[in-house]
């Protein structure tokens, strides 16, 4: 008997002992009510992305490669390197000179003095160590600690930035849609010195808390610098603590315990709210509390609990004035980036929170950091999931949709580039169908047809629709008579407000516009002498691309390369004249009264880009 027991004990004993242990451990994990009950989300704290890495390595890696991670970086962080060299570069603007260098400990430093003054002895307008770098994709901005009445915790975004694509410093007046400013004016130079604590902090960090005290001093804190895991999944300290034990993790297959949120599993409206917290400018319900403690938003809850999106007619407090109209076209579509949330809300496809959501096109854990599009994203398929392509004049068939289906995807026309942001034209996230007839006679929002067919008028677009098999309506009003002698884009370029001019530049410089690039370059040249530096900057970048596409000789390309959109007006004019001579007459050179008429009709409004 003893001999028979011995083999059984040896062969099965360890396995049985393990199963007994695993069963006891599982029972303990399952019976621990604290480990499974609903967490206190309101008081949840941030664990940090490194805590997430342990279990969610692939997701951590895709986040680590993203621009979200580097949205805000402390310059004191180990291994931090700014996008800009900070090797003693000098930027002259508006009668001041900024010197960008490094402290003894290698951290970036900015010093601004009057141009006429002695750098060693003059009183600096700014002399500060850079504490934070903000942005890493298109532009990197810099933040310094400056006590301007708000205490040592007061942080200010400096009025200079590094343009990553052009690898050059720019004054921030260049990135905003306002006139350049008066040389020698400190106020104009410092126009975009902006307090970080109650502006950028909110959308560029995870769990931001401005920390405004009753005495007016700032004690700002963040859960983590930059946009990290917990910005979208919610503070995860309880999740990390609960899932520290292996048996607890194994039994997590039983279901979600609510310690974190998976935006992909949320209803479309709530998932959109997660992104809308930053990608849609908002007005908080309780601004005093928000400034003192943060907005209290938790992913998975309606964003409307804490704020409302800024819309065209929005007002703040008791002030009945709609201060935000400049940010919107008359039809309510956003003219600026960072309003994608309200644009999607206004799209029929969103179906009031039951239809299209951000995650249908974007994936935070996809393969490409730029635009963060889903790896399986196909702009046509995104639309044909709901829309029958055959019913849309064969939108996806060869030669269908008036031949546009072969050349363009749905986004090109149904999400036209009617927003401005970061010195670029950006697509509208208000999805709709182009209707040039509704736009005839208007001088506001660009339309998809003439944004691409830059040499055409809206009346031409209306007349072309039936031939393409697309539905056409009668124009709602009479044609703008100026469209008989100038294309819609030319009218915008010469007679539009700053955003229309910027978007006209963007349209002319697009590589897929079906007009000879030399013609477009010749038209674009006039924007090099625009009053607004942002328009000049975009024209300069676009003109260089068109010159390269046209194979123009070195005289043109060299002149363009040497052009500085931020230089003094006389310098810019000299280069423009040289280029105009090389490229031939401009669009209105034979009828200068038309150019004058358009310039007289310009709306020189300064567009207040909210921060």
């Amino acid at each position: 008997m003893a001999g028979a027991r011995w083999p059984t004990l040896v062969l099965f004993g360890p396995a049985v002992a393990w199963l007994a242990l695993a069963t006891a451990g599982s029972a303990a994990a399952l019976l621990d009510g604290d480990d499974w009950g609903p967490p206190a989300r309101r008081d949840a704290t941030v664990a940090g992305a490194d805590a997430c890495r342990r279990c969610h390595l692939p997701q951590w890696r895709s986040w680590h490669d993203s621009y979200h991670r580097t949205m805000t970086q402390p310059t004191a962080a180990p291994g931090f390197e700014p996008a800009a060299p900070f090797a003693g570069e000098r930027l002259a603007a508006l009668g001041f000179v900024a010197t960008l260098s490094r402290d003894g400990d290698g951290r970036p430093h900015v010093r601004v003095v009057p141009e006429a003054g002695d750098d060693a002895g003059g009183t600096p307008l700014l002399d500060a160590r850079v504490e934070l770098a903000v942005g890493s994709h298109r532009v990197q901005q810099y933040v310094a600690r400056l006590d301007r009445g708000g205490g040592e915790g007061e942080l200010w975004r400096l009025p200079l930035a590094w343009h990553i694509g052009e690898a050059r410093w720019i004054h921030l007046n260049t990135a905003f849609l306002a006139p350049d400013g008066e040389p020698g004016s400190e106020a104009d130079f410092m126009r975009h010195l902006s307090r970080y604590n109650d502006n950028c902090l909110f959308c560029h960090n995870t769990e931001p808390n401005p920390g405004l005290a009753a005495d007016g001093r700032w004690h700002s804190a963040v859960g983590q610098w930059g946009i990290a895991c917990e910005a979208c999944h919610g503070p995860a300290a309880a999740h990390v603590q609960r899932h520290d034990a292996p048996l607890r993790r194994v039994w997590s297959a039983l279901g979600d315990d609510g310690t974190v949120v998976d935006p992909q599993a949320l209803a479309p409206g709530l998932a959109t709210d997660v992104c809308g917290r930053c990608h849609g400018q908002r007005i908080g319900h309780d601004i005093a509390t928000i400034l003192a403690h943060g907005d209290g938003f938790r992913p998975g809850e309606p964003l409307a609990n804490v704020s409302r999106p800024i819309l065209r007619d929005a007002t703040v407090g008791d002030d009945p004035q709609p201060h935000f109209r400049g940010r919107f076209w008359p039809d309510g579509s956003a003219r600026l980036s960072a309003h994608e949330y309200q644009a999607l809300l206004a799209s029929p496809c969103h179906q009031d929170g039951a239809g299209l959501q951000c995650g249908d096109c974007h994936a935070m854990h996809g393969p490409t950091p730029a635009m963060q599009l889903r790896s399986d994203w196909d702009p046509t398929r995104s639309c044909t999931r709901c829309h029958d392509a055959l019913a849309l004049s064969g939108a996806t068939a060869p030669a269908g949709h008036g031949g546009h289906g072969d050349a363009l995807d749905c986004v090109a026309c149904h999400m036209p580039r009617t927003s401005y942001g970061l010195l670029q034209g950006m697509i509208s996230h208000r999805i709709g169908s182009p209707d040039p007839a509704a736009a005839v006679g208007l001088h506001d929002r660009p339309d998809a047809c003439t944004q691409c067919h830059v040499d055409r008028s809206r009346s031409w677009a209306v007349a072309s629709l039936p031939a393409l098999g697309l539905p056409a309506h009668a124009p709602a009003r009479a044609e703008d008579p100026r469209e008989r002698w100038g294309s819609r884009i030319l009218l915008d370029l010469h007679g539009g407000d700053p955003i229309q001019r910027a978007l006209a530049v963007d349209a002319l410089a697009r590589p897929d516009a079906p007009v000879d690039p030399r013609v477009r370059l010749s038209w674009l040249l006039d924007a090099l002498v625009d009053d607004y530096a942002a328009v000049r900057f975009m024209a300069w970048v676009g003109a260089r691309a068109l010159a390269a596409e046209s194979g123009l000789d070195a005289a043109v390309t060299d002149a363009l390369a040497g052009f500085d959109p931020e230089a003094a007006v006389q310098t810019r004019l000299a280069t423009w004249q040289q280029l105009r001579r090389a490229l031939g007459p401009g669009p209105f050179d034979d009828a200068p009264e038309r150019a004058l008429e358009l310039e007289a009709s310009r709306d020189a409004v300064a567009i207040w880009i909210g921060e």
Partner: protein
Amino acid sequence: MRASVGLLALFLGSGLWLEAMIGLRAGGWVDDPLRREFLRLGHAHGGLLALVNLALAWAMTKLQTPDGWARRIRVAAWLGALAVGVGFFGGGLWHGAADPGPLVLIVPAGAMMLVASCVAVAMVR
């Protein structure tokens, strides 16, 4: 030995299923790396450990393992291979966000039975 060959057929056959899911781009497979990994582990371990069962049967014949031990070793080794394969499969099919599901807990038990079986075949005369 017949049961071991049956086990081999079962886990080799599961490979056809996994291949089919790749070919059909089955949702819940191509988009679930954890599930893919654990189903692969189940397929590979189950198949290889079924071969180990056959090797043990051959070794016990060659080494003339006493009947009392041999009967129990055959059961332990077979159950071990089954537990490892099924544990990986089950842990992958039903799992949480970042960890395999509870069925994976039988994998160590199966591994212990197999290790004990190998040691017993080597040592018992």
